[in-house]
């Protein structure tokens, strides 16, 4: 059972994040500490730092994976993901604006608002009964605008500290993961993935093209609304707690498609599971590779792993056209 293997691997990756880190804590100690037993310092580290961080890595990764799979299914284009279609850039613009005005504590909310406004703009531009091609153009356009405005905000950063705060934030990290982040991102991502799963059957039908799908009773408007709200919730809450983390939404669905076949409905939840496992591993790697003061940012690591792998797939994989 290839699916059972995937689920087990993802769960192991998340559990491993509890006992792998700079402070030496064994598997047994970590699991006991999770339940509040054992040494006080171990309980503190596991319950307050590692568990929320591991859970957030899994949640953010699941949201990014599911979003990428749903967008690729809808556009019938293996190059679509929340980063390319502008959702991440809109969320980042919201967060960066909050940092610019010195409201660092409001960054997560600002990221969510940014994603929501960007999604609304994309929905309005796409309009009723317009196809996937329009969504790609609207998303890329809105994303470019948000990136330009982010550059503008950095251009007018009031002082070097605000600028460096923005730059580090844009690199993406789970260092500040805590229970508050978990309470916010968990439910929002769950609702987002739920909305995406509801598009599954329609995405499958859309494999036949838009006219044929509509003749089979698919409402393009309903698919678009569920899709855009779902992606905005997943990516907005992901960016809110972890900053900009790229490339997962692009290459995780790609790998899942190669292993499990092209069914767009199944790929949504398969990519959510794989994304959760992958981001847990990647975040663990950033902690292990952290060398004294120098911190490796998660967003940089995912791109460094993702890009070569993606290029390899682009050259070696069967072409979907």
């Amino acid at each position, binding site marked *: 059972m290839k699916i059972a293997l995937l689920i087990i691997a993802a769960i192991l990756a998340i559990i491993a994040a509890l006992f792998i880190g700079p402070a030496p804590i064994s598997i047994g100690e970590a699991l006991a500490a999770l339940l509040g037993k054992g040494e006080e310092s171990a309980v503190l580290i596991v319950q307050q730092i590692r568990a929320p961080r591991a859970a957030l890595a899994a949640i953010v990764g699941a949201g990014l994976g599911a979003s990428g799979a749903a967008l690729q299914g809808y556009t019938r284009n293996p190059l679509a993901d929340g980063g390319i279609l502008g959702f991440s850039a809109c969320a980042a613009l919201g967060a960066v604006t909050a940092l610019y005005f010195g409201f660092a504590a409001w960054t997560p909310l600002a990221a969510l608002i940014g994603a929501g406004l960007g999604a609304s703009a994309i929905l309005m531009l796409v309009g009723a009964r317009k196809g996937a091609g329009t969504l790609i153009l609207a998303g890329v356009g809105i994303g470019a605008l948000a990136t330009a405005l982010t550059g503008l905000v950095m251009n007018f950063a009031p002082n070097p500290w605000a600028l460096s705060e923005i730059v580090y934030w844009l690199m993406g990290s789970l260092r500040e993961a805590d229970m508050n982040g978990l309470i916010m991102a968990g439910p929002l991502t769950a609702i987002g993935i739920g909305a995406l799963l509801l598009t599954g059957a329609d995405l499958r039908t859309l494999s036949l093209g838009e006219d044929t799908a*509509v*003749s*089979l009773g698919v409402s393009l408007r309903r698919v678009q609304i569920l899709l855009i709200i779902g992606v905005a919730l997943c990516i907005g809450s992901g960016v809110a707690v972890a900053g900009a983390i790229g490339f997962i939404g692009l290459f995780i669905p790609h790998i899942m498609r190669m292993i499990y076949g092209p*069914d767009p409905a199944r790929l*949504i939840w398969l990519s959510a599971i794989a994304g959760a496992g992958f981001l847990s591993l990647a975040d663990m790697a950033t902690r292990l590779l952290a060398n004294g003061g120098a911190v490796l940012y998660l967003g940089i690591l995912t791109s460094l792993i993702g890009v070569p792998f993606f290029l390899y797939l682009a050259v070696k994989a069967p072409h979907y*056209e």
Partner: protein
Amino acid sequence: MSELIIKNLSAGYGERSVLRGVNGAARGGEIIGLLGPNGSGKTTLMKTLLGLHKPSSGEVTLGAKSVHAMAAKVRAKSLAYLAQTRAAPWPMTARNIVALGRAPHQNIFGGFGRINPADARAIDAAIDACGAGDLAGRDITTLSGGEQARIFLARALAVGADVLLADEPVAALDPFYQLTIMEVLRAKAKAGGLVITALHDLSLASHYCDRVWVLDGGRLVADGPPEQALTDAVLSGVFNISRPLGGFIPPRIA
């Protein structure tokens, strides 16, 4: 099967009007050949009959109910569509393509569920009707054009709708596959269905269609059995060809 009635139907895209006051009626058991030069409005008429395209005026009714006022799922179960462009973006198996024809019969949780026995029977019956049993397990992207055409036709049949609208189902096929596809359409009509199919091959239309509708510039200029509707005046006026000794030949060559 209930009657499909087209009343004074006009439709277009923005300022450009494509259909101008089309009237017609059709019932189960018929194959109607939709004929006309490129750009005469065949595809637009089909999309408007299906409810995919909103008319600017006029009405289409199926069993006294307006097609454009029907709930999407009800309409999808009543009218099946074989589009002119047929392609799969992913390397899916042929049977999974045919299975998509059952989408109107599934609820919003269809993305999770397995195919139920009734749907499975409809899928197998459609594959059999197209003689495509040996192709069912193959990857659609590895099939030839003629094999793909049979699979996409099976997909449209799997819907189980009374009305089938097929847009150029034999385009770019070799003679054997053209006849195979037309035989499947004839069997669908014999079983009581209504088949409306856009065709360019007038000989094929003459042989297989009970009636032809000839469109010219968005108007229905002839409606009747092929031998009556395809008069010399229609051939030269609409298609710019003449008919010496049985074949259809462009005037300059003739």
